[in-house]
């Protein structure tokens, strides 16, 4: 082989190698190395999460023990736990759960988003096959609730990091037909000048929503986290579709006011403004679309109730109709008011239960098309939050 023939081949090989190395990060979906650090973006199997400012250390990355094969072939549910350490202290624990392979029939919402005993719980939109919600509450971190968390705690112990007993959690769930991102930031109060507490039960904590008014530092931080969560939920939603909502660094909650994540409505208004400035849309189109965005905001939940509610409504209306009809039938055959009354009581009680159970069984086993009623899918999480 001459130099002349070798050079183009070598150049091609080098170009191929370069192409592979450039593309590799996008394809690198393997588990993260424990102890390595991640900054700005966490890539997780076709999804991404923009991280708040700082270095995040990988404490654990592996398969969750949660496994529900009724959802389809999703590979496995991957749990990644990252630590943010400030001045040698554990400041924040980030817990991310995500599917590895896309499914074809949707995921669902987390039950936490529908609770009414939390500091904050907001469902941005919710339907049969997609949803977005977030919540703020506290979590008891002391127990090894999952194997992955045990590994992360071991890592913390090896690095002489103390995991606070109770942390304030901002949780986000974003899901569509194929993917789910469940993101939970657990913030330490201790590193923010908030006193240590020794509550053993979730409901005894000073972070309980109804106790926050009596505790100024906790109340202020809970409010800061809540404000931060409003903007950050857009980051999680964008990450579900492997998008970056903002190129700017995302602040941690305490500094959120100085460098907040711009909320999604403002961002979309800004995108419209850019299109208007670029001549892609007219002033009239801009005005109409901006008005629509301001009026309707983000998201729309399904109006349809869930299966149990529909079944109950059907059972009730059916029972009212047939109970009247039964009076005549029962009296016709017995000719006795007492017997008719006894039959009515038995028919109402036994047949109502029979109707309800049959409806649920029919829906479950006959596989009628799912409606927009959201289902609840919860994974195995760090700590205790009930």
């Amino acid at each position, binding site marked *: 082989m001459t130099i002349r023939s070798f050079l183009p081949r070598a150049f091609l090989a080098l170009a191929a190698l370069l192409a592979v190395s450039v593309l590799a990060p996008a394809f690198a979906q393997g588990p993260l190395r424990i102890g390595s650090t991640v900054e700005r973006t966490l890539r997780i199997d076709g999804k991404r999460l923009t991280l708040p400012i700082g270095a995040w250390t990988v404490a654990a990355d592996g398969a969750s023990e949660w496994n529900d094969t009724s959802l389809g072939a999703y*590979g496995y549910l991957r749990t990644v736990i990252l630590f943010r350490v400030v001045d040698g202290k554990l400041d924040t624990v980030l817990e991310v759960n995500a599917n590895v392979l896309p499914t074809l029939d949707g995921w669902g919402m987390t039950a936490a988003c529908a609770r009414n005993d939390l500091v904050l719980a907001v469902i941005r939109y919710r339907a049969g096959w997609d949803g977005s919600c977030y919540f703020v509450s506290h979590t008891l971190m002391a127990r090894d609730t999952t194997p992955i968390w045990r590994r992360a705690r071991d890592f913390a112990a090896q690095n002489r990091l103390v995991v606070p007993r109770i942390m304030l959690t901002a949780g986000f769930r974003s899901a569509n037909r194929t993917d789910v991102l469940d993101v939970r930031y657990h913030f330490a109060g201790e590193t923010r000048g908030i006193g240590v507490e020794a509550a053993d039960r979730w409901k005894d904590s000073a972070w309980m929503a109804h106790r926050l008014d009596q505790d100024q530092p906790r109340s202020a931080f809970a409010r800061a986290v809540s404000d931060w969560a409003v903007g950050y939920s857009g980051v999680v939603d964008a990450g579900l579709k492997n998008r970056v909502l903002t190129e700017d660094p995302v602040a941690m909650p305490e500094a959120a006011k100085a460098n907040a994540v*711009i909320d999604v409505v403002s961002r979309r*208004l800004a995108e419209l403004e850019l299109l208007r400035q670029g001549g892609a849309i007219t002033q009239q189109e801009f005005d109409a*679309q901006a008005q629509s965005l301001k009026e309707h905001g983000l998201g729309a939940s399904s109006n349809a109730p869930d299966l149990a509610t529909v079944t109950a409504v059907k059972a009730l209306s059916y029972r009212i109709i047939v109970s009247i009809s039964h009076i005549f039938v029962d009296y016709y055959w017995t000719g006795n008011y007492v017997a008719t009354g006894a039959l009515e009581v038995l028919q109402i009680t*036994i047949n109502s239960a029979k109707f309800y159970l049959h409806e649920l069984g029919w829906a479950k086993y006959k596989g009628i098309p799912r409606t927009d009623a959201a289902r609840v899918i919860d994974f195995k999480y760090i700590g205790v939050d009930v």
Partner: protein
Amino acid sequence: MPRGPSKGRRMIAGAILAMGLAVAAVSPAAALAVGEKVSGQFAFGAKQIPLPTGTWTVAGLGTQTFRNPDIGAFGTIQSAILFLVRDNTVQAVLEVNGNTIPVNNGWGRTRACTEDSQALLLITRYKTGWETSCQFVRATRFDADTAGPGAWEQARAQAKQGKLTLPKVWLTAGFRVSDRQDIVDARYHLNPTELLGPDASRLVEPSDWAPAVVKGDPLRAGATQAVAAWATGFDAWVQRGLRNQITDAPGPLPRVAAPIAAFEDAKLADLRRLYGEGRISKETYEAQAEIARKEAPEYKPNTALLSNAVQKNISFRSFGTFVDYGIAYVVTASSYVSWGIALTLNATDSVWFVLNDQYWDNYYAKLNTHDSERVIDFVYVGDNGTGAAKEPKA
């Protein structure tokens, strides 16, 4: 003493400041340019569009004059036309339309995905409240002299300038994928010559590709089958693109002997990769592979002879009658009267059951039915018999 700005002015100033900050934070995506060469996939309105093997040239870019207040703030519908050229002949034209800004309340389906006699293939993967996925194969007539939307006008000027050869009729594989936020309408117009050889040039009318005609010609049937087989695998790529999850290059355009990997094969390959990397156990691999073989979605409308309510009533009555008999016997201790009550209730309650069930099902269906029933069409290149090009109204 100087007066400060009024509250209203302060609010306006605040709003302008917020808008300014937001504009500064929103960085426009890298834009395509006419003449640019792309392969594998390209970014289009924060989505990825998959490209079959080859170097594609951006031939036209534009926006659609599409208005629909129901959609919300979508910015504009941007369009791109790409050519795949070999030896001065256009092998394939990609026509793609998509939104520029995500919306919040979904899009809708295309008329091309509704049942009609001219479709050579029509598959609806799913059609729910806020999302749709469907694909079709049909013939489309256009060449360099055919007028069309803005992007096509640029593209055909390029074709004329470059003296490119275009057939008069194309085999179109179309994909419509949308979710709550985004829509991709991608139509890959394939030059039939690539599948049939030079003989294809005598096929100059869409009627030459009518299903009945195709059925009677083994060559055309083979070509259609190849495109259909390719399309049923390629739709997974279009769906991945909607979520920015295209990580490698899709395969080549359809050839009679080389269809792209089917939906389930791609999933099985992913599972094999995970098992090979040691990320899942053998048991998990086997269990999930079993599921993956059956899970390719396809929307199936209810075509049962008996309505769901009637079937349910039969099921309910089949054991309900005995319960009614039992209750009656407990009270009357008479077998004759008990059967009388049970059978009478069987007859009367069945009517109430079906009426009640249908009423509530319809009532809740109206709440559930959302924009998947809405037809959203843009202005497309050529005539494919759906009338969408002539009536670009939602």
